[in-house]
C-alpha cells in the first residue's frame, strides 16, 4: 500500500544538545520465526543486502550509512511468551553468527513465571558476550544474577513513549513526554548491568529525541510497535470458548503464518498492521530521514532491522 502519512517528523534545525561524532554504526537483523533461519543458513557471510532483502518493499523505508555492515543477529520475540526459539534454533543461530563474525542476541518478552525455566535453558546456550534483549525487569534480574557473561539490552517495551499513529497533531505528542533522560531510569539500568537501550521512532518524533539520553541507543526500523497484548486474537484461532481470548493458553503460532494490514478509512495515516498480539506502524520517508539524521549526529549507534 502506498502511504503518504500525515504525521511527519518535526524538523530539528537547532538541536539543544550538540551532535556527537558518529562512531561506526552497528547493524542488526532481528528474526522472530526460527524457520526463516534456513534462508540465512545459505550465506557464508552476511551483507547489508542480506539484512535488507527480507524486508521486501519496506526496505525503501530504511536509510543506512554507507559503511553500515552487519554486526549483530537476533532471534526471538519481544512480544510473545509462546515464541521463545527452540534450543536447536538458538544453537543454529549461534553457529551462523560465529561463521559470519557477528554477535548473537536472544530477544525475550515480558515473562510469565512458567517461562523462566525454558528461558534459563535458552540463555545457557548463548556464548559469552552474547546479547539478551530484555523487556521484563524480572528477566533483567535473572540475566544479571545468573548469566553475568551475557550483555543485557533494554528492549522497546522498557523504553516507554507515546506511539499512537492516529494522533491529530504534534501537539498531542508533546503532552506525553518520555522519561528516557530521567536520572533514576539511567541508574536503574546501570544497576541491572544494562548497557544499551533499544527504542522505536515514534510518529511526530524528531532526530534529536535520542540526543542526551546518555546511553548507547539502537533504533528498530522500518516498523515501530504501537501496542501489544497478552490476549491474542489470531492465537485463539484453534481454541474453543471459554479458552478463546484469554491468557495462559498454548497457541499454534498462527501469527507466523498470517498478519493483518490496513488503515482507518478516510485517513492518510501510517500504514498499520497487526501480527498476533501486536500492532505496528510502518515508517514513512520522513521518519527514515530523521533516523538517518540521528545516526549522522551520533545519537543513535545501532539500527536493528525487523519486520512486522
Amino acid at each position: 500500500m502506498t502511504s503518504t502519512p500525515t504525521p511527519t517528523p518535526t524538523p530539528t534545525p537547532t538541536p539543544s544538545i550538540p551532535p556527537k561524532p558518529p562512531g561506526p554504526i552497528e547493524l542488526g537483523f532481528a528474526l522472530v520465526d526460527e524457520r526463516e533461519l534456513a534462508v540465512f543458513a545459505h550465506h557464508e557471510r552476511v551483507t547489508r543486502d542480506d539484512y535488507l532483502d527480507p524486508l521486501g518493499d519496506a526496505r525503501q523505508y530504511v536509510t543506512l550509512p554507507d559503511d553500515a555492515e552487519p554486526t549483530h543477529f537476533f532471534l526471538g520475540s519481544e512480544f510473545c511468551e509462546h515464541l521463545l526459539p527452540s534450543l536447536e534454533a538458538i544453537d543454529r543461530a549461534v553457529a551462523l553468527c560465529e561463521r559470519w563474525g557477528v554477535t548473537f542476541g536472544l530477544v525475550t518478552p515480558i515473562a510469565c513465571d512458567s517461562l523462566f525455566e525454558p528461558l534459563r535453558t535458552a540463555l545457557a546456550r548463548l556464548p559469552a558476550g552474547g546479547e539478551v534483549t530484555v523487556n521484563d525487569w524480572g528477566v533483567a534480574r535473572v540475566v544479571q544474577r545468573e548469566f553475568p557473561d551475557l550483555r543485557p539490552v533494554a528492549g522497546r517495551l522498557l523504553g516507554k513513549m507515546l506511539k499512537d499513529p492516529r494522533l491529530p497533531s504534534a501537539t498531542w505528542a508533546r503532552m506525553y513526554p518520555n522519561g528516557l533522560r530521567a536520572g533514576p531510569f539511567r541508574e536503574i539500568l546501570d544497576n541491572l548491568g544494562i548497557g544499551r537501550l533499544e527504542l522505536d521512532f515514534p510518529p511526530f518524533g524528531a532526530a534529536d529525541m535520542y540526543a542526551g539520553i546518555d546511553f548507547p541507543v539502537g533504533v528498530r526500523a522500518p516498523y515501530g510497535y504501537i501496542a501489544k497484548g497478552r490476549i491474542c486474537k489470531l492465537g485463539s484461532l484453534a481454541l474453543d470458548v471459554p479458552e478463546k481470548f484469554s491468557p495462559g493458553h498454548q497457541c499454534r503460532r498462527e501469527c507466523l503464518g498470517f498478519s493483518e494490514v490496513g488503515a482507518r478509512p478516510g485517513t492518510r495515516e501510517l500504514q498499520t498492521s497487526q501480527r498476533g498480539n501486536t500492532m505496528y506502524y510502518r515508517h514513512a520517508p520522513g521518519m527514515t530521514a530523521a533516523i538517518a539524521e540521528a545516526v549522522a549526529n551520533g545519537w543513535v549507534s545501532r539500527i536493528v532491522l525487523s519486520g512486522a
Partner: protein
Amino acid sequence: MKITAPISTPAEVEPLVRAGARELYCGVVPPEWVRRFNTSGVNRRVFGNLNGYADLERVVDNAHALDAEVFLVLNAQQYGEQHLDALTEIAAHFRSIGGNAAIVADISLIALLAANVPQLAIHVSSVATCRNVESARFFAQLGARRIILPRDVTVAEISAIATELPELDIEAFVLNDGCVFEEGTCHTVHLPMNKGGPICIDNYEFEYRAASGEAPAQRALRRLEKNDQDYKRWLWYRFGNGFSVAPNGYPWGPCGLCAMPAMHAAGVHSVKIAGREGASERKVKSVELVHEVLRRIEDGEPETKVRECAVGLRDAPSHCASGYMCYYPEKRSRQEVASYAEPA
C-alpha cells in the same frame, strides 16, 4: 481480602465504604500542575479526578473516619523528567494530609518516591506490567509494598506470586473495564470518540495476508473470519456489554467474581474494581456485587456455591455462559458454562 474501589468525588466515600470497600483510590490534578505543564496528565485519566487538594483532604478525612484507606494514582505509563519533582511534591502533600499510598507505574517515579517520601507506601500500578515473581522482587527492591497485577493473568499465576511473596500485598482485578492490549505496553491515548476512541475499538479496516504476502487461501480465510466474529463478540463483552448495565442495575464488563474464592485462598490482599470515570451508582453497585461474594467466602461457603451465587447476581446467567465476560475464564469448566445457559 479487601475491596479496592474507585472514587472521583468526596461524596462517594461514605456509600462506597458502607457498601463494603475498605480501600479507595482517586486522582487529583492540582491547578499548579496545569499552570506549569499546560496539561492535565498527572495520571492515566483526564476525567474522573477529584476537584483539587481540598477535595483530596476531605476524601482522606472521611475515609479514615470510616476506617478505610486512600490511595492516590500517579500512574501514567511514563513521565518526562521535568515532571518528576512536581509529582514528588504532590505525593509528599498527599502523605502530609494522611494519604496511605501512591499507585505508580513509572520506575523513575517509584525510585524517587521511595527515596523522598518514604512514609508513603508505593503500590506498583497494573500499568507497570509486573506479572512474575522476579519482576515483583525487582519492584519490592525499589521500595514497593504492593503489586497490582495487570488484567491478563491467570489465577494460577496470581496464586504463585501471592504465595511466593508473602511480604508483598498482591492486588488483582475483579470487576469492570477491560483493556484489549496490556495497559503498560499500549502506547496510545484514548482519543475522543469522534477521532477514533481507544485504538482497540477504532475503525481499522484490515485485510489478512499470508506470510507470502498474498491473500490467504479461501478455507483459511473462512476460519479467520469466523474467529473475527467471535472476537467482535468478545470485544462487546470486554467493553461492558456494549457499555450497558444489567436489568437489576449491576454493571456488566469483565468480571472475576468466580475467581474470588481461589484468590482468597491464595492470600490475595485486595481485589480491584476499575472505573474512576464511571457514575457513582455504578461504583456502588460494583462494590455491592463484590462484597456479596466476599461475604459468602468469609462465611465459609463452598467454592461451587459461591460461584453459583456469583453467576446469579446479575440475574442474566446467559452472559456468563458466553464465556467472554470473564477475567479468569479458566475458573469455570465447560460443563459449568453450559449449565448457566440452561433454564433452571
